[in-house]
């Protein structure tokens, strides 16, 4: 009986996770596409320079910088925000799993998932060793 309950909740959790991933990717792709239109309309006739690595300007490297670019309605900033949404999708999936395992009273996996979430947070904060 206890096993039945667990299986049922597992299935529910899996459905939620599936929906979360699908919506995250769709939303991110739509935002990237929107940013692409703005970017290409304004800069489409300039020359691309990708054979020499210079790195992105600081505004496109941090979350606060990207938000600033979005508010200024810059094409590259809008695309970068979409990419940020995409990166956030698996992170949201992990965060959701913490709650799901907690509801199932699976303490072991709450800890496991929190470790994964901590590593992800560390990386998104810049991953400075």
């Amino acid at each position, binding site marked *: 009986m206890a096993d039945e309950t667990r299986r049922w909740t597992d299935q529910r959790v899996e459905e939620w996770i599936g929906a979360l991933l699908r919506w995250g990717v769709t939303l991110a792709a739509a935002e990237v596409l929107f940013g692409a239109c703005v970017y290409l309309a304004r800069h489409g006739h300039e020359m*691309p320079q990708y054979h020499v690595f210079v790195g992105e300007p600081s505004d496109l490297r941090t979350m606060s910088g990207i938000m600033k670019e979005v508010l200024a309605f810059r094409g590259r900033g809008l695309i970068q925000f979409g990419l940020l949404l995409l990166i956030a*999708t698996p992170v949201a999936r992990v965060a959701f799993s913490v709650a799901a395992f907690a509801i199932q009273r699976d303490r072991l996996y709450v800890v496991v998932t929190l470790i994964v979430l901590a590593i992800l947070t560390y990386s998104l904060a810049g991953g400075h060793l």
Partner: protein
Amino acid sequence: MNILEFTLLVWVAGLLAGFVGSLTGLGGGIIITPLLTLALGVDIRYAIGATLVSVIATSSGAAAAYVREGFSNIRIGMFLEIATTLGAVGGAVLATKISTGAISIVFGLVLMYSAYASSRPRHERVGDCRPNPLATRLKMNGSYPTPDGPKGYCPQGVPAGFSMMFGAGILSGLLGIGSGAVKVIAMDQAMGIPFKVSTTTSNFMIGVTAAASAGVYLSRGYIDPGLAMPVMLGVVAGSLVGARILTQAKTKWLRLVFGLVISIMAIEMIYHGLTGRL
């Protein structure tokens, strides 16, 4: 060539890579980077940053479908993600420290090995399974749907699988790929998990692994929106088309031809890395 033309070209390259990646089971990520660097002359650091983002998109898209079908094992995935995310952060930091030539050589070797691994025949394990104590404590035993109803499995060799996953994470972070081939081998070979469960759980893990290195790449300025945009949109569209075709027959010849093309790309990557032309 202006930005508009370049973007279209990269989009087509992404489409192609996504298509071939899903047909061969290699993933689009490992194919787009050689295309960008060898054919379009993009610096490998920009290529890796853009590719990594597309890896998250294809993995999450595919995982959404598999999770609902009940193939992937969320607990196995989550536990092994500790290893892959740790490795991925380490790999991404390593990528910012070693030369692009070295990255290119490692890339070529991994590409060649992945092509070889994906072309090997797949066998499903049969027979009874004895639950492994550690795997049981970690609640990894599960079942998956087969034509004859749900079939149980019990993973073995958790420490070996965990170590291999750490390696897969390092490669993923270093090269901006999903390293699905290594993940599948860790689960299928080292842990004795059924192939279908291994591939779908691997797919499920790739997004989280890639997100772990994406943070490092973003803050180091490797992710360029102008380049990542067509790569991502192209690879996602390409793998959707590839997944449709995959269900139809006659992929054997396609796989052989693409396997050859991929081997040539791998040799080119190694050659360019050795001669320092990347």
